[in-house]
């Protein structure tokens, strides 16, 4: 028998195996210190995605698409000291490596008419900041009279102002954000300073992720340790599962770093998942070794390993399939990478549990003596059996129909709830309600029309009246949307200049006039942000005020409708920006959920059908977990938990892990039914024996995932809660719904048989 030969080989090579595992762990462990975190949501769209390409192009052509801001709040911004501080912040930001452009009160283009002369310069001369009350008052009146500044760079009440910056395309966003925060905090300014925009949020998310890693992994470790200790009451039963899970985590993370991958918002969940899932395989192996009796400990061990390898492998393979469904089913790179490395991690855990665990046990003579084995109680005598499993199985056998009705009612209710599921990809929603980032975003939305950049790209002759007039028309149309308050383009500047030339605030009809006006704009700092050097392309810049996915979707639709009718050959219009990116992420999320779940269902049902050599059993096994997933979506709908970058994973993860419970019950039931030929007894026995293992597993895995609720990042909190819920659902389903299905199925068979007889 090949399995036996394999088992013998493992025992024979115990020392080389232990040494190799230790060496690999050291090697991968050394990689860990270089592992980086990537919190950039744009990176989750594939490189060739059209929305991502257009957005990146804006970054290349116009000096950065990534926008951050420093918010300065004071009693009155138009105060010499405050303006000095704004200038100081502006200077500080300007000199940070990776910064492309900076716009602030002390560094913003201004076009004005002074005594019949034209002045194209800065709103405030940074070297000569107004000092007298009169100067300051007139500056305030002037600034707030211009749409270019009011609500865009200064709040309408003059109590807060922005220093807006864009990042160079190749800049490390988190690094820049961190440097800016540090340098500005060091200035110790008296004004209230806060930081907003995507790069700042990314930096915050990164630190929160690090914090989570540091806190949650040890916490999960402790929780699982306690549960194992309580369930098994042995050091071996506690230490070995945790060790193999930890080693598989180290290997997986080390491999990630070695292959140049970074930890992202999704893969950060991996250690906790591996800890919860990975320890389960070792538990199976240990259980088997415990059960194997015989005087020759070595022979017993070999027999146990030979027996358990295939079942453990099969139980693992469904989980691997669940994660692998993301590699092929998900559109977002972040999720694909997560799927890839988590399946590798699970495979590592599997491998370790069948190779490393027996090697360690054999090397350190850890096989339990007969005596301790005899002390183990039968399931019926345990507290869990008396209080829970016995009444439970009686209920199932007596009233299978009630249970079916209860489940069906729950499913109907859940399907209703499913229609209320929202999606959310906005980074703001990653933060808890009281997090400073959320507070800052609120200020940005209330006072400054939001922090999300919107770009409308125009392709055509940027000096032609046609294109510039179309830009103005587009800007007017944009401002009619409830979430766009101010816009900026070269057309605005041309209008203002034309006004100063005394010909009204309009785009001149004569191209020659536009070319003349352009002469003064040439070389202005703001120009490269608005038009390309060859004057064949230009953009309208705006900011979007809402963080709501629905608002973004409405806006993108609203704009696309306009673009469709107004884009011409001479003036091609396209929309991009964060709302577009988020809308794309959103639709990808739903698509990812749908295709990865479908793929997971097919793979898992096929695997189970193959394992149980019966297609109908494959379907039966899937029913409890599929029901659980429907209930899960229903719950998300009712509880208002959005489908986001982390919660999108729950269904497939739950499917891969939850199906194991059904497999246990069905295998056990088939075995018993063949022997006893009595449905009720077989069911009762299955629940009594497998039930205990399932309950322990549900409790330890759910507890492990519930630890994620202590995360600082909202999607991860929800992910933990939902996976834990699904595990409970899958466990309960496999102990109630599945037996009921089996009972009804076999009773009908029995009836049919009786009838025939």
């Amino acid at each position, binding site marked *: 028998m090949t399995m036996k030969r394999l088992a013998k080989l493992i025992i024979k090579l115990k020392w080389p195996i232990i040494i190799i595992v230790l060496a690999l762990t050291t090697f991968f462990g050394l990689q860990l210190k270089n592992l980086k975190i990537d919190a950039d949501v744009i990176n989750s769209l594939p490189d060739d995605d059209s929305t991502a390409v257009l957005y990146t192009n804006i970054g290349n052509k116009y000096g950065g698409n990534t926008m951050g801001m420093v918010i300065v709040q004071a009693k009155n911004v138009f105060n010499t000291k405050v303006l000095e501080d704004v200038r100081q912040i502006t200077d500080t930001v300007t000199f940070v490596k990776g910064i492309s452009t900076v716009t602030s009160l002390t560094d913003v283009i201004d076009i004005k008419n002074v005594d019949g002369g034209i002045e194209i310069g800065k709103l405030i*001369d940074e070297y000569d900041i107004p000092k007298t009350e009169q100067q300051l008052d007139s500056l305030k009146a002037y600034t707030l009279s211009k749409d270019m500044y009011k609500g865009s760079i200064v709040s309408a009440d003059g109590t807060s102002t922005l220093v807006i910056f864009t990042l160079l395309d190749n800049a490390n966003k988190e690094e820049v954000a961190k440097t800016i925060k540090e340098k500005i905090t060091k200035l110790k300014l008296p004004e209230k300073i806060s930081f907003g925009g995507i790069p700042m949020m990314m930096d915050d998310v990164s630190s929160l992720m690090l914090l989570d890693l540091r806190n949650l992994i040890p916490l999960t470790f402790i929780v699982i340790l306690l549960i194992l200790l309580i369930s098994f009451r042995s050091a071996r039963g506690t230490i070995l599962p945790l060790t193999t899970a930890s080693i598989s985590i180290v290997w997986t993370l080390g491999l990630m770093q070695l292959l140049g991958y970074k930890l992202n918002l999704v893969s950060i969940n991996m250690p906790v998942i591996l800890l919860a899932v990975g320890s389960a395989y070792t538990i199976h192996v240990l259980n088997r070794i415990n059960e194997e009796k015989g005087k020759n400990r070595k022979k017993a061990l070999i027999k146990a390993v030979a027996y358990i390898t295939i079942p453990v492998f099969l139980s693992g393979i469904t989980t691997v399939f669940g994660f692998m469904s993301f590699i092929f089913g998900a559109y977002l790179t972040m999720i694909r990478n997560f799927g890839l490395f988590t399946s590798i991690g699970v495979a590592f855990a599997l491998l370790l549990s069948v190779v490393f665990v027996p090697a360690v046990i054999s090397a350190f003579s850890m096989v339990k003596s007969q005596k301790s084995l005899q002390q183990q109680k039968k399931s019926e005598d345990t507290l869990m059996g008396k209080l829970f499993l016995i009444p439970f199985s009686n209920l199932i056998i007596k009233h299978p129909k009630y249970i079916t009705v209860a489940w069906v009612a729950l499913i109907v209710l859940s399907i209703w709830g499913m229609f209320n599921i929202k999606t959310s990809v906005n980074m703001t929603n990653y933060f808890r309600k009281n997090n400073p980032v959320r507070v800052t975003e609120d200020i940005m939305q209330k006072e400054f029309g939001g922090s999300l950049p919107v770009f409308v790209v125009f392709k055509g002759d940027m000096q032609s009246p046609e294109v510039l007039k179309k830009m103005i028309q587009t800007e007017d149309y944009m401002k009619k949307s409830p979430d766009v308050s101010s816009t900026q383009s070269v057309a605005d500047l041309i209008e203002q200049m034309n006004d100063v030339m005394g010909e009204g605030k309009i785009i001149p009809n004569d191209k020659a006039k536009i*070319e003349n006006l352009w002469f003064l704009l040439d070389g202005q700092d703001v120009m490269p942000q608005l038009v390309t*050097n060859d004057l064949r392309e230009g953009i309208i810049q705006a900011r979007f005020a809402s963080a709501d996915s629905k608002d973004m979707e409405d806006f993108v639709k609203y704009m696309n409708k306009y673009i469709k009718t107004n884009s011409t050959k001479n003036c091609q219009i396209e929309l991009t920006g964060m709302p577009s990116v988020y809308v794309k992420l959103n639709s990808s999320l739903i698509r990812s959920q749908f295709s990865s779940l479908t793929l997971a269902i097919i793979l898992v049902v096929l695997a189970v059908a193959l394992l149980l050599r019966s297609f109908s059993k494959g379907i039966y096994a899937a029913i409890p977990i599929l029901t659980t997933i429907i209930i899960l979506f229903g719950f998300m709908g009712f509880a208002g938990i959005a489908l986001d970058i982390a919660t999108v994973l729950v269904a497939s993860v739950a499917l891969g892990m939850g199906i194991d419970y059904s497999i246990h019950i069905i295998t056990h039931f088939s075995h018993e039914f063949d022997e006893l030929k009595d449905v009720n007894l077989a069911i009762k026995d299955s629940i009594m024996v497998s039930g205990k293992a399932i309950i322990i597993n549900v409790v330890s895995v759910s507890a492990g995932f519930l630890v994620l609720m202590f995360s600082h990042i909202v999607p991860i909190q929800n992910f933990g809660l939902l996976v834990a819920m699904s595990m409970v659902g899958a466990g309960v389903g496999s102990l109630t719904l599945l037996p009921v299905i089996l009972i009804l199925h076999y009773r009908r068979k029995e009836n049919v048989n009786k009838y025939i007889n």
Partner: protein
Amino acid sequence: MKTVKLSVLVSALFLLFGLNANAQDANTILKKMDDVMYSAKDMTAKVEIVLIDKSGKEKTREALISQKGTKERIFRFTAPASQAGIAVLSLPKDVMYLYMPAFGKERRISSSVKSQGFAGTDFTYDDMESKPYTEKYTPKLLPAEKDVYVLELKPLSPRSQYSKLILKVNKSEFYPTYMEYYDKGNHKLKESTYHFVRIGKYWNAQEIEMKNLKKNHITKMIMSDVKYDQGLTDNDFTVRKLKE
């Protein structure tokens, strides 16, 4: 041994002293440079302005320039067609006028734009100004290089956009060969190189290349048809003349 050491020391001291004696005082060097650059009474020339962006793409403009002393100047663009006829008149006391032919109107340009780029070039209005360096900066002598004196210039006005300039001046003819511009954060912002040729009795900056290191953008100003001392008067530098 001791005596040998002493003699080395003594000769080294003499060498240093001798060098110092020959060295030019920083102020004198800068003054001499101003004289070389601004000694002509007037000048007319054709200027070709080449703008090179970070991807290496070139754009060319052409202008006619006429200048009297250091205070009066007209820049009249002739190419490309879209800018032909646009003219800038600079008068004493930072007074500047811009003429736009498509509007048939001139407008005074405010003086607060001096740190802004001139017509899309890497030269600011400040850089374009012909004000003598001795009136704008205090020089400090740095160790000289092979053919050039090296000066560090600190602006006299606190409103300057630069924190300092590093200037290299030809040792024998006192024209500038190279300049570095540092911003207020003391980062090197721009650098310019000069190619001077002798035309009649004056040295002419035939080619100036200004490179903006932050924007990675280059401007070349190439002068041709240079004529000196043709007897231009203040009447050649009026708003009426600008419109012609």
